[in-house]
């Protein structure tokens, strides 16, 4: 495990994101209402830079002919084939086993750091 400082807290305001290069990979840091999440910038499907995707909401599981829209601002939609991931967990919305890799992220003295496991 190694901890890398990747940004200043002010760089990523609520609703914002920043993509950083750290330990040989790209990581997207997202600020959802004050909480930070770090996702590896590689889509589980065909490897697109998923963190460049739109942050959206989605239709939640529902009855037939019913639509429930929710999770606004919490869903990352891959720019290629539109697989959708929950930013807070990295899990896709259609199969919890399909996920983007996530990393622990913390803020100490205004410095944002992610922790990356050793290879």
């Amino acid at each position, binding site marked *: 495990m190694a901890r890398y400082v990747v940004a200043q807290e002010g760089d990523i305001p609520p609703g914002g994101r920043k993509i950083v290069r750290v330990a040989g990979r790209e990581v997207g840091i997202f600020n959802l209402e004050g909480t930070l999440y770090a996702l590896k910038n590689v889509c589980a499907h*065909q*490897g*697109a*830079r998923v963190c*460049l*995707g*739109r942050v959206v909401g989605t239709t939640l599981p529902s009855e037939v002919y019913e639509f429930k829209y929710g999770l606004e601002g919490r869903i990352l*939609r891959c*720019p*290629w*084939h*539109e697989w959708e991931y929950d930013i807070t967990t990295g899990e896709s919305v259609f199969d919890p086993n399909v996920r983007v890799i996530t990393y622990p992220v913390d803020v100490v003295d205004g410095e944002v750091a992610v922790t990356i496991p050793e290879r």
Partner: protein
Amino acid sequence: MTAPNIIIKEDSMALAVEPREATFAERAAQLRLIDTDVHNDLPGLNELRPFLAKQWHPWLDNGGPGQAARYYANMGSGRMDDAIREEDGLAAGDPDWVVQQLMTKYRIDIGILTGSIIGLSIQHDYRFQAAIASAYNEWTLEKWVRPFTCYKGSIACAVQDPEASAREIRRLGDDPGMVQVLLASAARIPYGNKFYWPIYAAAVEHGLPVAVHVGSEGTGIANAPTGVGFPSTYLEFHTDHSQTMMAHCVSLITEGTFEEFPTLKFAFIEGGTCWAPYVMGRLDRLYPALKAETPYLKRRPSEYILDNCYFSTQPIEEPDNHAHLLQMLAIMKAEKTVLFASDYPHWDFDNPLMAFNFFPADLKRRIFVENALEMYGPRLLATHGRA
């Protein structure tokens, strides 16, 4: 591309280099990937004005002609959002941008342009559409193909008027920048029908394959996208894409098109691949029983598929078990019949560096390079720059 012809003296020093054209085989050996489906964008019909005769200009003046409305689209932008260029808001509006975003990134040597205008063949005003097709072809050559060695064009034509299409094919058929004739899968009549044969006669005359690309089904004057009518979601529509492909393919075989034009090569682009084994099996099973109806078919139907037809990978089927896909590909002899296509910059793009990782190397090489070379022939490598 030139290969140095090095003359070596006894002392092994290279003394003189006489450049000569590399042979087809030498060039072919260096290729890594041929992409048979690159959608360059037309920013707007107005771009075609310089290539259109005056009588059509009024059509462009007042906002342009109405195109078939309510085509099927997905919820997103329909494009790879990460490939959009700020200057024009397009993902493939600029040839240099596509070199960067697609050709270089994914190590593609040659991209076959399939453009963004196939829907013209299901508009009602076919005379105007024939003019648009010619203008579009000129625009493609001028802006994309001639200045760049890595792009080859497709001849767009107003398929609803086969005679006009044939004229357009003959007009451009010897241009080394054009490598195929392009049809939309949206149609009023299945493509094997004699109605279309003037198009195939012209294509064969010039050694051009014909490609049918999915799109525009259910709009304009085209039939519904499925045999049972109109889907209500894009999920339904997109899944059913292979239906139109199947219908055209079976029609081409049973109408005897490949008997009439034995050298005609037909490519099915963006319909996926796994429907082909089904068609082969079903036709071969029925043929002995129903042969009296089609006495002009001299061979088992699947042989026409193996000898005259090609299928592009995209969107490649992704079963949980990779072996299942490889088995389907084996049935359709993918080592002869399947071509790589990315569909850049559309949202259902396949990443060539990832989507085929589990393919055996020799099969991958066939799909990535050799099959396309066989289908398009030497024209694919011919120099096509401005004279």
